[in-house]
């Protein structure tokens, strides 16, 4: 994303310098795997070369979802997941002369990223979202509406409750337009971004003895049904997911945590994967988003909500807590940064929403000198709930105490 936008070069995205791999005795081999021969412990590549293994870790990630739209494999149709997608985008949308308009299909995190990228090169963007509001299956109404506004503020032609019928091409197989399902309208464009989610990239595993479902089935130890073969990251499907977490979590940090856990196992400390409390983050154009614990799109039976929004319409906080016990369940914060360690502790200790509100100044993670809204938030909560929670002064002692 940032490479296309000119914030960085590709090398800046690489976490290690190129000498790192050889120095640590890691051989990098590039190629596509065709087949895994679990009986003879071999993997076979597209070019029929093979490598044998003692332990095999499958971390093949995701591929983009395609729903059988006519024209979905044409030139100029792409996802945004792999480096190859970036190269394609450079080819088909280098500027607004070559790409006079782009259409993005699918209103989630990748879709809005792609929109931001294209807008950075002043390419007109039409953004088709199937739901009646952006990322509606995850975000509560207020947050979703805020992002709708923000998308339009960035001059994106946002079409809600709109689906794709087909992609039309010219004689050479290059995209020329898309047809809208609901209205039959034709939108002329040079690039179509398919960003309606991802699913595990496991086609090459399916003809082996490894058990798969939507992803590669693993137990809590990230082991597949075959000894010495493991799967981690986007391609792994937990047989018994933890808590409210999904069986397949295409989230960056779960991949990292699975890697850390599996490293313990492979180094002879067999360790189960225990993802802690749910958290996540994203950035929608200029608005940062973080979440800790659970704030569902619709409140559950036992849940009460508290919502505060700044008058500029670009900051908000949404608290979720138990109606009866007042235990804190989760927070969405937009345009305000919050401290992960604080909420992790609160969730573990099952503290109340009042406890959280009183310590909002400890929780804040905005840069120094930023205007703080804790007082405003707490007094709004007090007003709405007839409580008298007192905001505590920020305390380094509390923030850095491990108790």
């Amino acid at each position, binding site marked *: 994303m*940032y490479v296309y936008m000119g914030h960085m070069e590709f090398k800046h995205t690489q976490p290690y310098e190129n000498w790192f791999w050889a120095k640590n005795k890691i051989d990098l081999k590039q190629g596509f795997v065709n087949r895994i021969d679990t009986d003879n412990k071999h993997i076979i590549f597209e070019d029929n070369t093979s490598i044998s293994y003692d332990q095999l870790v499958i971390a093949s990630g995701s591929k983009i979802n395609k729903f059988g739209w006519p024209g979905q494999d044409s030139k100029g149709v792409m996802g945004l997941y792999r480096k190859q997608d970036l190269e394609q985008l450079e080819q088909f949308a280098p500027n607004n002369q070559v790409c006079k308009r782009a259409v993005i299909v699918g209103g989630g995190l990748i879709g809005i990223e792609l929109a931001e990228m294209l807008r950075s090169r002043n390419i007109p963007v039409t953004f088709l979202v199937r739901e009646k509001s952006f990322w509606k299956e995850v975000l509560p109404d207020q947050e979703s509406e805020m992002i709708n506004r923000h998308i339009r503020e960035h001059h994106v032609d946002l079409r809600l409750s709109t689906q794709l019928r087909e992609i039309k091409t010219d004689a050479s197989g290059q995209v020329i337009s898309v047809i809208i399902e609901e209205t039959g309208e034709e939108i002329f464009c040079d690039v179509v971004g398919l960003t309606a989610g991802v699913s595990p990239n496991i086609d090459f595993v399916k003809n082996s003895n490894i058990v798969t479902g939507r992803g590669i089935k693993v137990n809590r130890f990230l082991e597949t049904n075959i000894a010495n073969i493991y799967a981690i990251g986007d391609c792994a499907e937990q047989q018994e997911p933890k808590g409210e977490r999904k069986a397949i979590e295409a989230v960056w940090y779960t991949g990292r*945590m699975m890697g850390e856990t599996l490293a313990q196992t492979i180094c002879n400390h067999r360790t189960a994967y225990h993802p802690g409390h749910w958290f996540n983050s994203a950035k929608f154009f200029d608005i940062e988003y973080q979440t800790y614990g659970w704030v569902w799109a619709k409140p559950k039976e036992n849940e009460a909500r508290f919502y505060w929004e700044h008058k500029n319409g670009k900051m908000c906080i949404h608290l979720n807590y138990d109606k009866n016990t007042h235990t804190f369940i989760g927070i969405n914060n937009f345009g305000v940064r919050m401290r992960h360690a604080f909420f992790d502790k609160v969730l573990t200790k099952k503290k109340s929403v009042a406890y959280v509100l009183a310590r909002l100044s400890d929780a804040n*993670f905005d840069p120094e000198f930023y205007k703080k809204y804790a007082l405003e938030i707490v007094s709004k909560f007090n007003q709405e709930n007839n409580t008298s929670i007192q905001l505590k002064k920020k305390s380094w002692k509390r923030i850095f105490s491990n108790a």
Partner: protein
Amino acid sequence: MKSIQNIGLVIFLIGLSLFTGTIFTGSFHLSPSALDAFIIEKDYQNEIIETELTKAIVTDDPLTIFEFSHRVRHAYEVANTHYDSLISQYDAEKNWDKKGEQYPYKIYGKPHTLSFDLAKIAGKGYVKAHAGLMWMLTFGLGILGSLLFILPNLILLGKAGIKNDGIYLKASTNRGWIAWLVLIYLVSFYLLLYFMPDYVVNWTFIVDPISLFLNGGPASQWFVYGFLYCTIMVVMALRMYIKYRGNKYQVMRTTSVLFFQIVFAFLIPEIMTSLNMPGYDFKNAFPLDYDFFFDWNLDDLRNSGSIGLFILIWGIVLTLVIVPVMVYFFGKRWYCSWVCGCGGLAETLGDPYRQHSDKSLHAWKLERWLIHSVLIFSLVMTLVTLYCYFTGSPSFLGIHSQWIKDSYSFLIGAWFAGVIGTGFYPIFGNRVWCRFGCPLAAYMGIVQRFKSRFRITTNGGQCISCGNCSTYCEQGIDVRAYAQKGENIVRSSCVGCGICSAVCPRGVLKLENGPEKGRINPTDILLGNNIDLIQLVNKREK
């Protein structure tokens, strides 16, 4: 809007061309009486210099500054050669008395500086006669053009946010041909300023009226530099305000460096000079202020009564007490990013180039060797200077005092801090000097690393390893390497500019001053992954 910017660019380039072009204007010669007055003022004992200079520059020919400089330097050379040959003659004859008698006749000083002093009184021409108009055509057009280029960004860049679109797609900010041209211009500028000031004497004429108003005397090349420095910082600070207007830390920090540059580094010393006090920059701490303990400065301070004594004590307390105490509480950022003049230029003029700092491990190793060597160099130099000052001996530990001072001034003061430090902005980034060379930064870095409350806190497991923080770190710190492991960033080189925190898309980094305990926190397991580490370690030990 875009066309306003283009007009601004053209106006700026016209201003810059005129400014550069003034070097080649004017004519230089002296009347016999003016030369007499000059020689009397300088109190030259040399008996030939008057004849030689008369031959050289008392003429009706309209000499350019280059011919003038050439002739003057030749005259001084001839005048000195005469006595040098006498010295070697008496040396061969072992006639020590006669040999010793020759030295007072010699004229010391750098040839281009001697030539500058003469050019200052010998210059005539349009620039000198119309200083006000020329100021408008050079500085004026430069400022106007820059503003027309910068201010439309308030609208063009859109709403407040991170504005790094296209940085790696432009020749100016991605080491393209524009960047190389800027490098050549800046390097040439510094070479002229430091080593051939007489060639740019016309620039001093442009700001003579301002100098006269501020300190009562004509402008030196250093006054031009100081004035230009402040002007550039003001203009580029406006750019910072627009680019980072959503980030209060950046806005306040920029205001602070601007204030300290204009008031402390520029105005106060000029006003002090006009009041016959030693012009002193109260924020310029030793060893960055490397000549603070030079004999001429100590003499100057001792001869300046109570204000001199105050400066002497202040300078020592600043370095030994204020600097480390402030670093303990706030990190070295209080100086490098809030007060320092070098930092101020780096954070304004240099901001478009911050991404070019070298992030490799190799560069980090080089950094530690270089910066600490410069620190030791400056301390040894000062030790030798002080020993020689108080004992009257010309050398200490076999090191000649004048030699080490000259070497440091030339290698570190001029080449490292100036020519390389600033000239190389467009290619090597804006903090080359601060990262690899500044002895004060090295000193504060040691304090920051081992005894400080400052750290950049990493926000648990939120890092996505995107690399923005490392890319935009002007000090070449691989911030991401820490952030993705959930470790706080505690590095001696961090100047606390706060940009890593600003460009982070996920709210992972926060500059904080907190308790020392737990400040450095290498964590094997990131927040979010509930492995009991202690249990693991215990198990392993069994």
